[in-house]
């Protein structure tokens, strides 16, 4: 159900690149990508996943996952760990640790610490481990500066380099507004997926466009990139991808 979009993005493999960044343009919703990747990682045997919920709370991913054919509740506490920042803030109000500088730590520092703790406690038992962060722009909304968010992403990229088979996937919405941060974070990784809206208007058959950029050769002179563009349509229980020009006006 999500196989086609993962195949198009090159995310259907068991071993993923160390750092992947998803850029979402304004007024377009790329949450389906997180749900698709989450389902794929959960289905891999003995693969750990950590979901950091900043944009939606855990219940949303559960419901979206049920539409795609997987049940996150089965995996939660076993191969799936969740840091639900949104629910924490709702439950604790203004006293939430995410809003107060507990022990002199900023929001991003606390988040990195929590992620590290989860990785260290679960990584050893897993063949691979994936950290999904949805969505970096919420950190800006909660008062983090560009420098703090950049440092946060660099810490995660460093964590991915320290450990083999650890993948970090970040998503940033309103990437056209946070262009500098978006470009800097994308440079940390090997794969960048841009979720773009159709510039010429609204179309019933297509929701938007995915632009996938991948660094081919890693090394001292890694500069070759491939670019691929596909169109996508999010349906009730699956996501379809099309090549540009495949959808036309039907007479």
């Amino acid at each position: 159900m999500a196989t086609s979009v993962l195949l198009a993005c090159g995310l259907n493999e068991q071993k993923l690149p160390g750092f992947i960044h998803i850029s979402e343009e304004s007024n377009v919703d790329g949450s389906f990508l997180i749900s698709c990747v989450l389902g794929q990682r959960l289905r891999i045997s003995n693969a750990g996943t950590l979901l950091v919920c900043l944009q939606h709370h855990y219940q949303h991913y559960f419901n979206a996952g049920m539409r795609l054919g997987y049940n996150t509740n089965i995996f939660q506490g076993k191969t799936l760990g969740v840091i639900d920042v949104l629910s924490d803030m709702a439950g604790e109000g203004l006293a939430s640790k995410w809003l107060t500088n507990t022990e002199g730590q900023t929001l991003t520092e606390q988040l990195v610490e929590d992620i590290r703790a989860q990785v260290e406690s679960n990584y050893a038992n897993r063949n691979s481990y994936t950290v999904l962060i949805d969505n970096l722009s919420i950190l800006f909304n909660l008062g983090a500066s560009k420098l703090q968010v950049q440092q946060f992403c660099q810490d995660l990229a460093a964590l991915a380099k320290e450990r083999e088979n650890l993948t970090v996937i970040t998503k940033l919405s309103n990437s056209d507004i946070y262009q500098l941060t978006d470009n800097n974070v994308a440079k940390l990784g090997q794969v960048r997926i841009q979720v773009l809206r159709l510039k010429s208007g609204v179309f019933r058959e297509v929701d938007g466009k995915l632009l996938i950029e991948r660094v081919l050769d890693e090394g001292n002179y890694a500069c070759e990139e491939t670019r691929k563009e596909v169109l996508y349509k999010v349906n009730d229980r699956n996501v379809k991808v099309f090549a540009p020009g495949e959808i036309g006006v039907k007479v």
Partner: protein
Amino acid sequence: MTSFRKRTVQKPIRGTRTSPHTAQVITSSGNPYLDVVIGGGLPMGSICLIEEDRFMTHAKVLAKYFLAEGVISKQEIFLGSLDDIPAEMLRRLPRPLTDQESMEQSEVQALGDGGAENGLRIAWRYNDLPLVNSEHATAKIGHHFNLMEQMDSMMLYNVKTTLWDDSPKHLDIVIDEEFSKSSSPTTPLLEQQPVEDAPPIPGAEIAPQEKIPAQEEENSANNNNNNNNSSSVTSSTKTGSQESQLQVFHNPRYKGLLNDIQQLLRNESFVAGTKNNLCRVCLTSLGSPLWYDEHFGEDLIKFLTLLMASVRSCNSVCLITMPMHLIAKYDASLVPKIRQLVDYAIELESFAGSERETHPAFKEYSGLLHLHKMSAINTLAVHMPETPDLAFKLRRKKFIIEKFHLPPELQESSAKPDNCISGLLSNSNATASLDF
């Protein structure tokens, strides 16, 4: 031993139903036409943003529909505003139509459609075809209201309502008929300053005037002990945490408003997954110039983020109206940031004061309705309306949203509708080639 298990069907929350398309619990926005546009109703935990028109008249009508629906469905209501007097707004809610009136209205509409049968002399073959009704008001949930008449104030007796307007003397009014019976100390009792030229709200708790200073001291002292679910500002006794909480917002109004909302939403009636009750949060003219200060953008975005967190985590829906045209002038980058934090962003573009007001192509309509955002909450795919070209009409008795369509013939050939209509029907970045 039989394997038969009796299926226990839980009663749905008043005023809600399960959407057959997304299996989500949805509730009416109050306006049946808007419900059709957004896929049947507002999903639980969603925030709907109405971007106000220039003169703010039409957005307030939708807010009144939202509140009136909550009153009729006996859902709990939170109403906050700096620009309006919440108590006054509650008193002027539209009256719901009775079943008989609704039937008569639909009969009148059907007769009006049928009357066209005798009007076709040339294209008489079209008589047998069903008429295209642009007004899709299939109200499976929700009610119809008459904007000409006000709701009976006695209806407010059955509804728990919390009002917020940041008034120093008039902080909160809790209208709760069963307050004395309730064992939950979630709603603190505060004094009320009577509104000028308005009868007292039925059921409101009013403290005697001479006790106001003592009452204030008592309430401020009791806030820390009274409310188990109160926000951490009132319940925390640690000075350090209080200081850090004060730093969350630069403008204390946001903190006060958020505290009150979170305090209400933490009530056990609204726990997510239970079928107790639904809370409707309505904030009108949020982000208006009365909210401006040095850190306006920062505080507003943070407030909306925390509001989103609170609304999503419980049985509630939220409707916010904002003067986006003013916010865009303040800082254009705030507009997409705000839209990203809500689930539905609907802009009302009124024709009042513009050249379209007198244009023959738009004479039937009061303005255009732009759907800037509809997001999938608790599901994968979002419901898309039949067409994004929508217009609204504010009639005497109702607010109608329908497909925008041009009249069959423009009388004045000298008037060039191309400039208006081409700008309307095409996107601003339209190019010659289609982007798919």
